[in-house]
């Protein structure tokens, strides 16, 4: 249970409904981090867009290198997720 009120999957409408549906078709479920941003679908959209471009878009850095950086940043921050 996050510390703020988020929108449950069954209650999402409009833009948020599209995000949740896309998450389910992409990952099989709505990840906690996506649900956490549900109070502001426009920010959710922008954050996901940056994530897709930075992590999956064309780059001289291989996918493995980018995931390595994500792991190191999470570790250094002491982030469990």
């Amino acid at each position: 249970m996050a510390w703020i009120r988020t929108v449950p999957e069954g209650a999402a409408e409009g833009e948020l409904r599209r995000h949740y549906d896309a998450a389910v078709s992409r990952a099989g479920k709505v990840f906690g981090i996506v649900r956490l941003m549900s109070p502001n679908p426009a920010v959710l959209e922008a954050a996901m867009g940056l994530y897709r471009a930075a992590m999956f878009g064309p780059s001289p850095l291989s996918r493995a290198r980018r995931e390595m950086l994500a792991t190191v940043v999470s570790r250094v921050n002491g982030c469990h997720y």
Partner: protein
Amino acid sequence: MHAHAKDFRSEVPGPEGERVAAALVDDWRRAPLDAADRALCEHAEKLTLRPHAMREADLRPLHEAGLDDRAIHDATQVIAYFNYIIRVADGLGVDLEPDMPPRPRPHAESSETEDAVAAAGEAMAPCITDTGTMTIVWKCLRCNHHLPAGSDPPAACPSCGAPRTEFALVEED
């Protein structure tokens, strides 16, 4: 962190990926990395911990390892993005995914700490907020089973059998 170690494993399958992923979660300095990876990890660590101390000279090891400006730019965007999203996750209490190990609970073995946590739960449950009535419950971090707060958590989760240390106090509305 567990989400990305998992993604790393899927990008570098097999025992080698497993070995590197485990080492990265533990300590990247002991991971079997090439010079460019090592320079990137160094960059990620310094930019994350000491952004105010970054100097132009910090990019030299990246150039020397053969990374061009586009690669350095892209790496810095990845590092910055994760610093951002981690603050959203940690600042708002992201729900862990069911396949992630539970959050470590410092001093969870100490009965003093557990008593203090239980007392805090009693004091707070239920608390009235401007969004309505919120109730504090014990939540099993393994299976999300909820139990009423106000007393000690059970010795074992009635749903999945996880030990008492796997229970955390959470708000439920």
